[in-house]
């Protein structure tokens, strides 16, 4: 384990006019650590995620990222070119709706290969064999490599989106409700796959979810958000087994027991 965090967030706030998106959020994320951000719709968790992933600019506060060369960079002071480069190499972003993260009209192989081509890979054979490898890691058969994601089921699309993100070996992946909108059985398979990949690759991840079971299975740490504020944070099992904030207790007690 490294002595330095990967991401350092200090007093981050985002306002939409006078309305609070999220306010005064601070935390550190270490390499290989999975942080879950939970809360209901409108709690500000997606606003926070989008600020961290530089898809939104915060109103105030800073977020610094330790680049592969060990240099710390302020995310909001980087040039757009650098930021976009970071996003397609060292970062990943898994959208809730796979159609938002995939190119629906090009083949699965090209979806996976796009990042490689973006960083200058110009050997078709190598790109294709890397794509085959990644498709198999997300349990998509080689025979589907030339099919468009339009022909895939929801679960397969989501797995394809994950492969597309991981092909460049990112160190940090943002996930926005990665299992939302999937059937329960498909969800379980995806979660299990994600968990395996995160462990095997030593990925750091920030996972936004309203599903506490997802948080329990994937994350070591979690933050509970309500009305734009973090109301409770800590080890995932501590927060879930001994919830302290009134809102967290409500969330935990609201889970349906099967």
């Amino acid at each position, binding site marked *: 384990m490294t002595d330095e965090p990967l991401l350092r967030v200090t007093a981050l706030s985002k306002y939409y006019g006078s309305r609070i998106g999220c306010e005064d959020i601070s935390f550190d994320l270490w390499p290989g650590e999975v942080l879950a951000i939970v809360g209901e719709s409108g709690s500000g968790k997606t606003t926070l995620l989008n600020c961290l992933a530089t898809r939104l600019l915060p109103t105030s506060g800073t977020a610094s990222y330790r680049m592969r060369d060990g240099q710390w960079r302020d995310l909001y002071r980087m040039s757009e070119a650098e930021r976009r480069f970071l996003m397609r190499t060292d970062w990943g972003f898994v959208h809730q709706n796979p159609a938002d993260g995939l190119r629906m009209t090009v083949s699965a192989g090209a979806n996976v290969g796009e990042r490689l081509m973006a960083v200058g890979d110009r050997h078709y054979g190598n790109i294709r064999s890397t794509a085959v490898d990644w498709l198999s890691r997300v349990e998509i058969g080689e025979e589907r490599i030339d099919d468009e994601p339009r022909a895939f089921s929801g679960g397969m699309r989501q797995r394809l989106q994950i492969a597309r993100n991981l092909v460049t070996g990112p160190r940090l992946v943002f996930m926005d409700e990665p299992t939302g909108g999937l059937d329960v059985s498909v969800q379980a398979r995806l979660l299990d796959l994600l968990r395996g990949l995160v462990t095997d690759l030593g990925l750091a991840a920030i996972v936004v979810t309203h599903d506490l079971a997802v948080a329990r299975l994937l994350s070591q740490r979690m933050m509970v958000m309500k009305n734009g504020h973090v109301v409770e944070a800590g*080890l995932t099992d501590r927060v879930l*087994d*001994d919830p302290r904030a009134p809102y967290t207790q*409500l969330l935990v007690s609201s889970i349906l027991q099967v």
Partner: protein
Amino acid sequence: MATPLIVSEVAKAFTMHLRDGIRLPVVSNVSFSVRAGECAVLGGPSGAGKSSILKMVYGNYGVDQGQIIVDHHGQLVDLATANPRTVLAVRRDTIGYVSQFLRTVPRVSALDVVAEPLVARGVARDEAHARAAELLGRLNLPERLWSLPPATFSGGEQQRVNIARGFITDHPVLLLDEPTASLDATNREVVISLIEEKKLKGVALLGIFHDADVREAVADRIVDVTEFAAGKIAA
């Protein structure tokens, strides 16, 4: 050598915000320590707070007051106030835990479940698998089950997977939450001998055993939890 685990003046209460904020005191003024090579057993009736104490020591429950000092790589760490990252490091290297129930993960084989703590500590997968197989063998789990996910196993089978997973590492502190609850006599004996081996290796064990025979066999000392009943003022 420092005492591996010292619990000092720990207090815990639950505040139930959904029920008008009533406060349910659990324990207070919990103080005891566990030496290397010793098995301390938490004693007392159900509801006395034995499990809560174990969970606080593992960092699973928050601590309201007091200190839980553990010797982590020669450093004394207070788990009552440690940040999550430190707690995770302590769990990986210093404190092991055998819970009552196995939280099963779909599609992961029993062998992988058992080997996982070793792999997480950097042991090669093959070696971790070999040691996992050895333990599962000792615990008489039929070999045909090793490659299957434990979700469909019986309670006793799951429990043995869980025990193997807890015992496979050489954590200096091991917490045992009723590890023998659903085991038959033969396997209870295996667990007793596993505990004896841990003691010989200098591991500090802290456990809850409802089974009087097992408790008798392994306990070096009983920590009476009723002493720590919340509200009771220390004499």
